[in-house]
């Protein structure tokens, strides 16, 4: 550039005719082509501004390419890459210039020309590149060789078949023996890029090659190191000792200052662990993974976020990795909201009976912050901790009540929802809170909170003195409520009637009539009819069914499912870890990664295999998972009998019904291990409705046009 900086004035919309004149004006005095450079700069600026008129200047720009000025060349090439697709015929005219440059004695020019040619998506360019590459892949200069390596991947992007038919991929393979580490890492990156885009290409790295590329790691740039580490994911250890040795050899990379090296290295170590048999060695490796992950929290917020999302993932696969102090995940006041929310999730997952007091103090603090979404999440987390850590339930409830006392509407509503779940988990305990909840009925305006409160009233209708009045109040606006609330009201009214027939006898017919005759919603109508028939056929059985024991709930349900977990662990550090969803659900074009089988694979430790084993023993687990076995041993046993009796009765009942009811039996996907909860079909659906929105992590993958993937 003629002068440093000061180009802002060129950053303005220009007219084609004027720019052409400037570009073509040539004066003998202007030896440095200053006028041309300025014109080209203006053209580049207009190109950036998506001023598509610029395309009209294509022939004029091509005419400048022969000028022996690197600066002019670079701008012309940039223009060419941008517009070649739209005017392939004009782009053709630039090809001879580029071909000449590829033969230049200066390696920087050779590389620049080759790089540019590779970008142009025009058949003649691709073909020209193809023939030039044979020589350039063996260029004496390493800088040209690494550019050539990437160029193969570029051509593959333009024309798969052409490259597959040529010997370029083989040539690329042989570059892995190059003496220059940068060339090797570039060739690997190119091969991986090709692999990613074609299902019919396999990439396998044997132990000796893996060992060789690990050897050159220290001599590569930070990016080269990342490419090599990524390539190691294609190495399948055949022997557990080899896996261990390789893992040991790459762990020094965990101290690199570049987080992509650190996280990619973490990915490879986690991957190799699947093939290592020795538990002692595994925990030693886990200990090495921990500090670097925490250190990433001192980086910029984006990297912090990424590290935290990956911590959430790694925690589920290898809990030992994050055995350290939970306090490193406490939020700073100025953390961006996305960091805070992820930290909150981690705090929830790391909370145990030992640190619960500390955690609760912290969460209470968060619950008074400004960001409404974060506050809600904090309140939910407190409630879920009550469910997750039984001995701490009392403390959690006290914290919630403290928050309810603030009378801030959204806090009260959020607390109401989680308290309902606490009742589900610990039936017939903590009933003293009901009266406090009842004091805040007026502040409930969100459907979920309303439904929760109505559930509580219905469930404890016999213990709330004025339950009928409270329900009646809610019923006043029955017709205007969303279905979620209407369903809750219907069920609660039936419960009231069953428990206190005298108080409920006026309400029930009214509600059943609304539900069956005055609604357009099929679910509501079906449920209404179901209750109606039950109550009229056999009230005793209806009581058993409606008031029967509900399956236990747990806070575990928000863990990733085993298959996803296994897949995500092969993708540590990638974009998918931000979403914690199966890769192809978010990135349809991504090539799936699977753990390759080998004699060394420690199958019994894989999440999917473990889950399958557990599934086999499911019946026994279900029996053992009742709430607090110590407290209510005997009564629980009878409860269980009641439940199974109810289940049987309901099964029989449903079999006799029309097929349109059968659909309801399918919603077993509610985290209860497919237990036969159809007995309370109405209830089950209700539970699903309530559990889904409070998933504490798992951002919703955008459906619809907006597709906002952010945590809500």
């Amino acid at each position, binding site marked *: *550039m003629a002068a*440093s*900086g000061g*180009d*802002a004035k060129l*950053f303005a919309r220009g007219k084609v005719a004027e720019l052409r004149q400037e570009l073509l004006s040539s004066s003998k005095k202007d030896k440095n082509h200053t006028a041309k450079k300025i014109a080209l700069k203006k053209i*580049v*600026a207009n190109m*950036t501004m*998506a001023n598509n008129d610029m395309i009209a200047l294509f022939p004029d720009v091509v005419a400048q390419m022969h000028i022996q*000025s690197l600066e002019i060349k*670079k701008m012309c090439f940039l223009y060419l890459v941008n517009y070649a697709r739209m005017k392939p015929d004009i782009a053709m005219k630039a090809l001879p210039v580029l071909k000449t440059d590829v033969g230049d*004695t*200066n390696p*920087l020019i050779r590389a*620049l020309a080759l*790089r540019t040619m590779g970008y142009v998506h025009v058949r003649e360019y691709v073909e020209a590149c193809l023939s030039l590459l044979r020589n350039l892949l063996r260029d004496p*200069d*390493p*800088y*040209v060789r*690494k*550019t050539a390596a*990437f*160029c193969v991947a570029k051509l593959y*992007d333009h024309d798969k078949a052409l490259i597959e038919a040529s010997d370029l991929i083989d040539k690329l393979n042989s570059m892995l023996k190059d003496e*220059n580490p*940068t060339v090797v890492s570039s060739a690997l*990156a190119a091969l991986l890029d090709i692999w990613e885009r074609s299902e019919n290409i396999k990439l396998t790295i044997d132990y000796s090659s893996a060992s060789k590329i690990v050897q050159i790691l*220290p001599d*590569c*740039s*930070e*990016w080269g190191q990342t490419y090599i580490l990524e390539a190691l994911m294609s190495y399948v250890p055949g022997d557990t000792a080899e896996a261990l040795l390789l893992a040991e050899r790459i762990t020094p990379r965990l*101290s690199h*200052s570049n987080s*992509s090296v*650190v996280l*990619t290295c973490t990915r490879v170590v986690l991957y190799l662990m699947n093939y290592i048999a020795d538990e002692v060695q595994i925990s030693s490796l886990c200990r090495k993974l921990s500090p670097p992950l925490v*250190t990433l929290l001192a980086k*910029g917020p*984006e*990297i912090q*976020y*990424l590290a935290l999302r990956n911590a959430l993932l790694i925690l589920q696969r290898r809990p030992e990795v994050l055995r350290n*102090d939970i306090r*490193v995940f*406490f939020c700073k*006041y100025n953390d*961006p909201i996305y960091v805070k929310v992820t930290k909150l999730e981690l705090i929830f997952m790391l909370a145990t009976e030992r640190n619960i007091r500390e955690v609760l103090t912290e969460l209470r603090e968060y619950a008074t912050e400004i960001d409404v979404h974060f506050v809600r999440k904090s309140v939910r987390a407190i409630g879920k901790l009550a469910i997750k850590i039984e001995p701490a339930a009392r403390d959690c409830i006290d914290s919630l009540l403290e928050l309810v006392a603030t009378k801030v509407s959204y806090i009260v509503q959020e607390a109401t929802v989680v308290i309902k779940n606490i009742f589900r988990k610990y039936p017939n305990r903590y009933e003293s809170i009901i009266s406090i909840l009842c004091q805040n009925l007026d502040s409930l305006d969100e459907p979920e909170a309303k439904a929760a409160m109505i559930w509580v009233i219905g469930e404890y209708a016999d213990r709330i003195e004025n339950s009928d009045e409270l329900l009646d109040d809610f019923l006043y606006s029955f017709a205007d409520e969303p279905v979620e609330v209407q369903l809750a009201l219907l069920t609660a009214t039936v419960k009231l009637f069953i428990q206190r027939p005298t108080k409920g006898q006026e309400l029930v017919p009214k509600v059943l009539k609304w539900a069956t005759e005055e609604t357009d919603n099929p679910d509501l109508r079906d449920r209404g009819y179901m209750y109606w028939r039950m109550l009229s056929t056999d009230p005793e059985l209806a009581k058993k069914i409606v008031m029967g024991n509900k399956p236990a709930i747990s806070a575990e349900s928000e863990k990733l499912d085993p298959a996803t977990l296994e897949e995500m662990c092969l993708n540590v550090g*990638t*974009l998918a870890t*931000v979403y914690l969803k199966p890769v192809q659900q*978010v*990135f*349809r074009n991504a090539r799936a990664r699977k753990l390759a089988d080998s004699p060394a694979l420690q199958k019994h430790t894989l999440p999917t295999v473990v889950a399958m084993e557990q599934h086999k023993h499911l019946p026994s687990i279900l029996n053992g998972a009742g709430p607090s076995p110590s407290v209510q041993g005997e009564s629980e046993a009878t409860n269980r009998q009641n439940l199974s009796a109810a289940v049987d009765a309901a099964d029989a009942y449903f079999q006799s019904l029309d097929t349109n009811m059968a659909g309801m039996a399918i919603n077993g996907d509610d985290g209860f291990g497919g237990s036969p909860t159809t007995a309370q079909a109405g209830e089950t659906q209700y539970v699903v409705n309530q559990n889904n929105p409070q998933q504490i992590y798992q951002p919703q993958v955008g459906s619809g046009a*907006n*597709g906002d*993937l*952010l945590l809500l």
Partner: protein
Amino acid sequence: MISGILIFNQKGENLIFRSYRQDCRPRLADVFRIQVISNPAVRSPILTLGSTTFSHVKHENIYLVAVTKSNANAALIFEVLGKLVALGRSYFGKFDEEAVKDNFVCVYELLEEIIDFGYPQNTETDTLKMYITTEGVHSSGTRSIEDSSRITMQATGALSWRKPDIRYRKNEAFVDVIEDVNLLMSAGGTVLRADVSGQIIMRAYLSGMPDCKFGLNDRLLLDPASLAQGGPAVGNTAGAKATKAAAGSVTLEDCQFHQCVQLGKFQNDRIISFVPPDGEFELMRYRATENVNLPFKVHAIVNEVGRSKVEYSIAVKSNYGSKLFATNVVIRVPTPLNTAKTTERVSQGKARYEPEHNNIVWKIPRFSGQSEFVLSAEASLSAMTTQKAWSRPPLSLAFSLLMFTSSGLLVRYLKVFEKGNYGSVKWVRYMTRAGSYEIRF
């Protein structure tokens, strides 16, 4: 990998659009503008829409965006955006809208060079400056072949961060140990979290290819018993013990090093060994969580009197040697949103109410060791129609304190070995700053 790099200003004007793959179409600039810049609901740095992912960072008044089409390495994306910012600052002094507009052609040149087909290439400032310059003197095409070969060797070599022919008349190295101490203290005065994240910045003005060895009072190195394999290569056991007794040692939770440090050597025998880049660079970062010395103790009493008044009494005590002094101590005391006016009295420095930040800002330019100052203040509140409890955000401190390390870290030696066998002068400075130094009340 990366399909394109885009830069926008805050208004959403596209300043740079560089595509590396055909799938990065111009209309994506509009998508980003609409979905991120003008959408206040977006709060994540990563946004996936259909098959396109936008990863962005904000720096000064510009957005730097990477467009990807598959499940790319997210860490790499953010690192390369960070590198771009660092390069921009090194080339143009700062990297904001003005700098980008003033140098947009140079930014394009850099983007052409540091990323090929979406894969980051050599991003070392020193090497890049050999052939991409803001002056354009070298880009005239008259450069000799030898020069170019030297550049290409440098850009692909194992020591890509250092030119071979550096000469200084006076060989010097400056080491700055800078610690950010983070504190989170509860209202009750218990330390919820205290840790130190430190960085060691080196400015090396050394000739030739110097081999440097750098030693800290690292507990693992000084206490041979805790060193798992391989003995410490420096000093005998007795010597090391003596030093430890004299200086104390520090347990480093974790260290991260510049590309130039030989990581294998560090893992095996905890020796920090490297050939430094020329000039300033960050040699390492570390974290320490044990025995953190807190330079300031804060005792805050904040009372909400009814709904009309908040009373503050804040005492700050310095907890370091009386010969040392901290500079630019700033204490930010949050006030409720409906504060109408405040009165404050201080025993040192100046306090002022900043309504735009809802803070009383108390500044003490020089805070000597072992002393205590007090702020008493009162905030009168205006009546509000809706009574919402005050969230009481934490009180925060900023300061910098020379010749003090919160972790207790010390530099024990810096040895320089070079073929020329020249003598060199080394300087070490220590500084502790407030990272996130927060006290709840």
